[in-house]
């Protein structure tokens, strides 16, 4: 099991290094080239930097049977689930933050609309650890968790291991290794390196855990200029495709560029509550919206 994971990593590195100059593409091409039916997809961004524009492109390209992975499904997965893109959801908190329910997620779980949705449910600590294990090339994550919690009764992927040194029983969950990670970031430089800052969530881990990585950015710059030596920068060779999509995180936000559109998050509750209003909104604002152009 460990060997195959290493093989995948090696092949991935070779594949990336053999793609010179091909990283800057349109959003449509980035999704067409990297997201396939049946893929496991992690669109990450912990409230901040959620890649909405890329998620909308996945909906426009009518991808199907996806396994969607995300700590907080948020509106972006409410939209993908409601549009029938997903067979399975791996998540840890599925609400509209500060507002209430994700109605499309609920409709899928409670009423199988637009189709049944398999849930693999974890805690935040578990998924954060699982992304980190994926980035580290480990088969599983080990942490102190789920004590007295009932999720381990309903999720067979929550197991335990005994510490060989102390005998303590610790929680174990499989590493997350998505087919593709999709994130939004502040800047890409001309070499295709990507800088992100602010609330950085699990995006670095998700990109390094994934076989392929798609990044949308607010801004293209010649170089990053003065910055902290500890700035979070993903080197170009860790990224499969970059698309320039200003505002690509809306109604989430980009630190230094925009504010979270809390008004839209509140409005979404009414839009998504009924199937008809949801479908009308998606038709007017996603399916028939002019594609974001770029490169």
């Amino acid at each position, binding site marked *: 099991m460990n060997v195959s994971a290493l093989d995948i990593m090696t092949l991935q590195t070779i594949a990336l290094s053999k793609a010179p100059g091909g990283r800057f593409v349109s959003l449509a091409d980035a999704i067409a080239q990297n997201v396939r039916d049946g893929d496991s997809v992690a669109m990450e961004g912990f409230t901040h930097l959620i890649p909405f524009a890329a998620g909308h492109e996945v909906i426009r390209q009518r991808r199907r049977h996806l396994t969607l992975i995300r700590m907080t499904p948020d509106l972006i997965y409410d939209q993908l689930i409601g549009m029938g893109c997903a067979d399975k959801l791996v998540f840890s908190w599925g609400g509209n933050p500060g507002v209430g329910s994700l109605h499309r997620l609920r409709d899928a779980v409670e009423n199988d609309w637009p189709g049944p949705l398999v849930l693999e449910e974890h805690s935040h600590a578990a998924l954060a650890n699982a992304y980190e294990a994926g980035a580290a090339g480990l088969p599983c994550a080990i942490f*102190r968790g789920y*004590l007295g919690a009932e999720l381990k009764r309903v999720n067979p992927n929550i197991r335990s291991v005994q510490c060989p040194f102390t005998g303590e029983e610790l929680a174990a969950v499989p590493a997350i290794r998505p087919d593709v990670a999709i994130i939004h970031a502040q800047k890409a430089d001309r070499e295709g390196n990507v800088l992100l800052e602010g609330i950085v*969530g699990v995006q670095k881990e998700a990109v390094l855990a994934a076989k392929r990585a798609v990044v949308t950015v607010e801004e293209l710059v010649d170089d990053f200029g003065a910055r902290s030596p500890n700035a979070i920068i993903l080197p170009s060779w860790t990224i499969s495709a970059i698309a320039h999509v200003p505002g690509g995180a809306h109604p989430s*936000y980009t630190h230094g560029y925009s504010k979270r559109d809390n008004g839209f998050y509140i409005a979404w509750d009414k839009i998504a509550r009924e199937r008809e209003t949801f479908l009308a909104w998606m038709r007017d604002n996603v399916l028939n919206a002019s594609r974001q152009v770029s490169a």
Partner: protein
Amino acid sequence: MSASLDFTPTEIMTIAAARTLRNEDVCFVGIGAPSAACNLARLTHAPNITLIYESGTIATRPNVLPLSIGDGELCETALTTCSVPEMFRYWLQGGRVTVGFLGGAQIDRYANLNTTVVGPYEKPSVRLPGGGGAPEIATHCGEIYITMAQSKRSFVERLDFVTSLGHGEGGDHRARLGVKTKGPTRLMTDLCIFEPDPVSREMIVVSIHPGISRANIDASTGWSVKYAAEVVETPPPTALELEVLRDLHARTHRAHAGS
């Protein structure tokens, strides 16, 4: 007695929660009433309290309450912002947090919480958001404070699902599970304040808010409520507490409406 001020049930719940926090606490904050309580404490008697939100923001001092745990306001006013794996591994699991604030859709007499489902897990009648950070917050923070509005629907004899551990089945159940932290030490509702019985760990009423009777509490609780030998009346909100809390909410409403 001085003329009492008008206040809402939610206001006294939030103020009671704020009073419980200490200046030296490192507090893991949830959204809603906990966020208001923690920031009220910071703006009144606990100016140096360290507020941590699970988005990775450490020692944040928001001017308005965030709608989500990851609003820009939190990052912009924080001492530092770390990644989410670091937050859960080093800071929470590492034992750096003294107080965690939780709430839920359902609570039982041992302060176990359900935020996962109403009905059976496989076919729920209501699919709730789920646990998020709660399962590990409940066991890694030094102690847990809970704020919840009280009703028979939410204060139940038996949870539909145990999302996060309180005192389990009571007694030494936490210790038997290998948990070393205190668990829920205080539950603040819109009617009263509960604390765990020292032996059974059942949550019992120790303080009743002004104008509330035991009959009110009994009628809003799905189990047979026990009362401490000495039950006090919760001191009413002060003018300062109400003013700071209302200013905070007013700033917050203006900010979110304009966004």
